[in-house]
């Protein structure tokens, strides 16, 4: 019964496929999985947009949208209808073909990333040996779409926003990859299924998730920082900051194309949360061994939505970073720290089981974190906070 609920989507797919003649079966299987992904993740997008607006509202001491349905639940529907019926203005001078292709390319590339995420036991769309590399290849193609959008608008602000966005995405891509490499080094495989299975073991009822190891915790923090920057979320959202650049690279997009960019951004957020969950939070495995009866896909989606909530929380709390602060942070703190995490992983792996490796690895990381942080602060001459009161 429990395992039936766990595998319910897989069994449903097998049943539907078995109703069709043998020649159509492989194609139908793939199409069904793709349709499932295309239905589920935009639904999650609608939920996260609503969650963001209500959550940010509450953090800013106001209620979010509350007119459209009970508690504003139908707000995403209203947003969708609005963006579909708005006029699609393309500037006369804009490069029409590239202007049209940029949001399409972005959405296609972002949805491709879902092909390798293990969303439950046996619920990966494509089981690949080099799955993580595929995911990062799709993430790298997003930058080209952003550039296409900014350049084709023939607008100085758009181009500036696109340049900043691409520079930011390239800078944070290196720490993103390096923090994932630490997970790959321990697991010994690039396949996301094997990474989740390696974390699906329990010691004394507690799971072997990589976030519960010293290097895993540090790598998860670096991954989270780099992921927030890759998807242009606050506090790294200078490329789309309203006060600086109107709307950055999607200034000249209105109506449904803007909705496609919006969809692409949130679906990208969900996608990279999914990857962070798979690499560090154990994917579809349950937190405690006793909770193993809950279906695996519930755990996966709960963890993804938890990551989304943390991203929304960060957006409501932290101020925006300036472009040079952002780049300095990437190249001078996050990247050296991820390289140190790689060294830490090697020390962890070759030190053998026991409490000593926990102490040594944690000590290396803590001393480095405090050391780098303090030296950067000294360089900038930041002292203790001083208060001035109005006289």
């Amino acid at each position, binding site marked *: 019964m429990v395992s039936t609920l766990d595998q319910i989507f897989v069994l449903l797919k097998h049943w539907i496929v078995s109703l069709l003649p043998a020649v159509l079966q492989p194609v139908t299987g793939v199409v069904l999985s793709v349709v499932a992904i295309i239905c589920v993740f935009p639904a999650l997008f609608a939920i996260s947009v609503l969650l963001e607006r209500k959550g940010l509202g509450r953090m800013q001491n106001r209620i979010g949208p509350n007119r459209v349905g009970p508690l504003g639940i139908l707000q995403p529907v209203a947003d969708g209808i609005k963006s579909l019926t708005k006029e699609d203005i393309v500037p006369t001078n804009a490069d029409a073909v590239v202007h049209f292709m940029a949001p399409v390319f972005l959405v296609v590339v972002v949805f491709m990333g879902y092909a390798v995420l293990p969303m439950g036991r046996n619920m990966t769309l494509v089981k690949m040996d080099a799955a993580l590399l595929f995911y990062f290849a799709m993430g*790298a193609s997003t*930058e080209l779409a952003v550039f296409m959008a900014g*350049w084709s608008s*023939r607008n100085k602000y758009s181009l500036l926003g696109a340049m900043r966005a691409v520079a930011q995405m390239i800078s944070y891509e290196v720490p993103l990859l390096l923090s994932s490499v630490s997970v790959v080094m321990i697991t010994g495989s690039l396949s996301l299924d094997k990474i989740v299975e390696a974390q699906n073991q329990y010691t004394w009822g507690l799971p072997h998730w990589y976030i519960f190891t010293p290097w895993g915790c540090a790598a998860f923090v670096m991954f989270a920082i780099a992921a927030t920057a890759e998807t242009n979320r606050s506090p790294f959202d200078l490329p789309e900051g309203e006060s600086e650049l109107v709307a950055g690279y999607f200034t000249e997009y209105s109506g449904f194309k803007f909705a496609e960019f919006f969809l692409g951004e949130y679906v990208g957020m969900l996608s990279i949360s999914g990857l962070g969950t798979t690499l560090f939070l154990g994917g579809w495995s349950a937190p405690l061994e006793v909770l193993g009866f809950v279906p695996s896909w519930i755990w996966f989606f709960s963890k993804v939505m938890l990551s989304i909530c943390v991203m929304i929380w960060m957006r409501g709390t932290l101020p925006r970073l300036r472009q040079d602060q952002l780049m300095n942070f990437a190249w001078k703190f996050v990247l050296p720290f991820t390289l140190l995490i790689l060294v830490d992983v090697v020390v962890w792996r070759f030190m053998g089981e026991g409490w000593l490796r926990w102490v040594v690895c944690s000590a290396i990381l803590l001393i480095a974190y405090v050391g780098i942080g303090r030296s950067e602060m000294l360089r900038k001459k930041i002292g203790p906070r001083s208060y001035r009161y109005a006289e």
Partner: protein
Amino acid sequence: MSIVFWILSFLTVLGGLAAVTLRNTVHCALAVAIAFAGLALLYLQLDAQFAGFAQILIYIGAVAILVVFAILLTRGSDTPTDGIFSRTWFAGTAIAAAVFAVLGWAVIQSVHALPHETAAPEVTVNQIGNALLGRYVLPLEIVALLLTASLVGAVMVAMHEKGESK
């Protein structure tokens, strides 16, 4: 040679031809990115997973962006006045055809040079990693040195410009 191969090679050749004959330089760069994507798909069709995804990650994710930045930072991005095809389309296509002829001849001749290759090998990422750090470690280190030198050079060029403008 299956239908997939013909479609993918058509895509790649179309991208390459567009890159040589279009007038707007940024369009040429985007066409080259399409050619890179076609190449990556050809690698994937030959079951070389690592090569295909690395091609997308490196060529489309980094090299295409580099090319586009280079075009933007020079004067090549001025909007062209009229026409889709550049004035030198014939020369571009002729040079591309000549290079293709030389490379094609070399590849076809190599069939005689390696007569003992039979089936395609099953290469996993694990084996590529082992080979890179085992048999091919010297080229890896030399490439790493080259990349470090180019990085240091880039930083020095940028710093030098900042020093001059003061």
